[in-house]
């Protein structure tokens, strides 16, 4: 189980900041997120970066137990 960290608009769309979720690649984890949190989350996710353990990750990247998968929507630095 990966540790999920949802921030800003991703946290708002999902309704939770922290969760645990199945999947041994980034793509599978995110697919399970969309199933769990629904369309509003999917829309935010489409524009977001995903980091695994603090590093930018691709869909193919592996996810191990206790890895932190973070969903980071666009920022408005201003």
């Amino acid at each position: 189980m990966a540790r999920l960290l949802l921030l800003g608009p991703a946290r708002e769309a999902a309704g939770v900041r922290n969760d645990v979720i199945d999947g041994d690649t980034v793509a599978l984890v995110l697919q399970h997120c969309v199933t769990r949190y629904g369309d509003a989350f999917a829309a935010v996710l489409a524009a977001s970066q995903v980091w695994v353990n603090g590093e930018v990750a691709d869909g193919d990247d592996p996810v191990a137990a206790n890895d932190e998968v973070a969903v980071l929507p666009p920022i408005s630095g201003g």
Partner: protein
Amino acid sequence: MSVSSIVDWVNVSSSPLSSDDLVAWAVRPECGAVVTFCGTARSSSTTGHEIQALEYETSVELAEARIAEVVATARERWPELGAVAIHHRVGVVSLTEPAVVVAVSSPHRQEAFEAAQFCIDTVKRCVPMWKREIWEGGSAWSEEAQPILSVEDV
């Protein structure tokens, strides 16, 4: 709080910020210049409302790690720098309070100005930090959001 060394001071927390604390810390006998930037919560907004406060959300761990990368990159570009401090608040920041403070010391002022501006420009583009605008009777995420950049892409 994360003090990565005696010359770098990176901090993301809900405590109020003081530029004097950073200036006092950044001053060095061999450095004649300290440039600071305070980014304060301001009234005009991306959503057209009269802002009363901003609310910042992040992961302290991820944000501090990215800010530390910004500082390390500034040191590569301006090796003369003395001390570099970057502090960012999370949570609610009232109008006119500082949300982010950068302080840079160096022997001469030109590199302190350049590095301070690089630091704040890069923090704004590269650090995971979400800003909610709060007005009388409502709130919303700031508009004009952009994907987070890597520090090496700035």
